[in-house]
């Protein structure tokens, strides 16, 4: 994973609450054995009309959304399944961060492990972000702060370990492997483990 320290970008707003992982990446696009190329199918059924044509109304299809890298979403974003294809698709599309007032546990976990900065802000900040699409935002991972266009900075919670992994671009598997001795001792101490 590449280190992620600072993100500067404009926001695109998807205000609907409870956007689930099926909407992010529909199941019929999961028949892949790689991580690449999922961006094409991101929000597929929202981006297209029933007849398959482009839904020009959908926010991601508007020309001014093209260069946006920060997704501001309604409450409880990413609920539903554990499919890591959801953060893979968002990253592949070009998003670097997702902000909401609540983000589903497994999605958030998966996102952070892949370098997609998923952050939860307070309701007031969230409301402001929802009302101001296209805002130029700054996210500093190390200090866990979000900077609004007027220069105000807002702190958010980010697990220290997740933060460390983002900043260092650390592969968590490597971290686990450092404990292999203790894992072995643990296994020996539990004779009933099948």
């Amino acid at each position: 994973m590449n280190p992620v320290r600072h993100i500067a970008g404009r926001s695109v707003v998807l205000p609907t609450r409870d956007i689930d992982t099926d909407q992010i990446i529909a199941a019929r696009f999961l028949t892949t054995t790689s991580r690449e190329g999922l961006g094409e199918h991101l929000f597929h059924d929202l981006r297209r009309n029933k007849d398959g044509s482009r839904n020009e109304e959908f926010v991601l299809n508007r020309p001014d959304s093209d260069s946006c890298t920060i997704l501001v979403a309604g409450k409880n974003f990413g609920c539903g399944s554990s499919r890591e294809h959801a953060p893979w698709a968002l990253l592949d599309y070009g998003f670097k961060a997702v902000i909401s007032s609540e983000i589903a546990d497994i999605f958030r976990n998966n996102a952070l492990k892949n370098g997609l900065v998923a952050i939860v802000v307070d309701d007031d900040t969230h409301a402001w972000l929802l009302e101001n699409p296209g805002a130029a935002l700054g996210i500093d991972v190390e200090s866990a702060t979000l900077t609004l266009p007027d220069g105000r900075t807002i702190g958010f919670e980010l697990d220290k370990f997740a933060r460390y992994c983002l900043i260092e671009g650390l592969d968590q598997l490597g971290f686990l492997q450092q404990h292999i001795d203790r894992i072995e001792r643990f296994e020996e101490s539990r004779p009933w483990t099948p």
Partner: protein
Amino acid sequence: MQTSSTLFEKVWADHVVVPETADTPAVLYIDLHIIHEVTSPQAFSVLREKGLPVRRPDLTLPTLDHSTPTTPVSSFKDLLVAGEGAANQVRQMEQNCREFGLDLLGYGSGKRGIVHVIGPELGATQPGKTIVCGDSHSSTHGAFGALAFGIGTTEVGHVLATQCLLQRKPKTLAVDIDGRLPDGVYAKDLILAIIGRIGVDGGTGHVIEYRGEAISALDMEARMTICNMSIEGGARAGLIAPDDTTVDYLHGRERAPQGADWDAAVSRWQKLRTDDGAAFDKSTSINASALSPMVTFGTNPGMVVAIDEAVPTGSDASFRKALDYMQVESGKPMTANAVDVVFVGSCTNGRLSDIEEAARVLEGRSVAKGVRMMVVPGSEQVKAAAEARGLDRIIAAAGAEWREAGCSMCIGMNGDIAKPGQLSVSTSNRNFEGRQGVGARTVLASPATAAASAIAGHVADPRKFL
């Protein structure tokens, strides 16, 4: 001084290899890792890149379920029914298992099936274990007093390589359920009512323990239905303390402990309960006696209503969007909606008792004209058991389709889908937009409600068919 702990805390403490600190999560040992073809290929690629073996093939249980066709598969050509991508995933899984020395419960094993159905039926799911799988309904295994949760593909790689996960300790939520479920009201109705009560994010960050008279009275399959949908309430895991029902269920199963090991296991399991006075971070309660059959009316599993009550009115944009999508009207009961497709199956309701409940309603009746009903057993063993009881013949005589085991219309990856605009009454766990096909409208319900709806041709109250 002896401190009192919850069931969750006991299982958690038992698996901590390295304790968590402010800076680092805990290293948690995993006793059983179930894998399937959709969320594991990228994890095997990582092992291959790093030259790592699978650390504990003996604790890894691989099967094929998500993208497999539910029409009989006798050759590779049949696999292509579900499309090139799905066929490729199956081939890849077979190859990964060969290469890494894993015993795949695949075609021809007689034991293939949905990840959360085969773990328990083989007796691999046991009280006090930590169990993970790259599927969020891993919470199902919590019905046995195991700590079980869904993980992403990166974590599948972590467990394959180290048999451990990095985890922060979640909070606890107690859900106390008094009373007894009335006739025609099932575990599915209860869990839908609970999600309706706490909301789809009510359990976020928590592990739920379901307790109380109504839970004790349930058999293991019904308990699995309850724990299965914990994730729909936002919780990562759901637990039920093991009791005699649990022990009886596991006794004699092929992967359960045998002989003296069995006795030792049972005495360990008996200690797995929440101590009196142990504190939960949150709690809520619900009375089962007053419940009716429940159905969803919207596009998330928290949008539920009793079958004999009117769909509520809501004004926020998400609520209106959901009703628009569903073509459902506020103020009218769900029974006003005509049905196109009925699906009985999935890890929520694809076990023998579920198929029996559906068959009981179908027996001597016919599926309404224009309605397509599919009954998909959760595993090859469920299929064989149902056939031994003649349930397949009752189902076929009623005009419904009896198919091969798999996830099928729960996720719609294998070609089993509803057409745009069709209304599907489904015993699965998610009614998200497009989950069962583009534009498909899903109503979640119990197997009895699903079967009653197939016969009536509209969403129907099963109590009229019992």
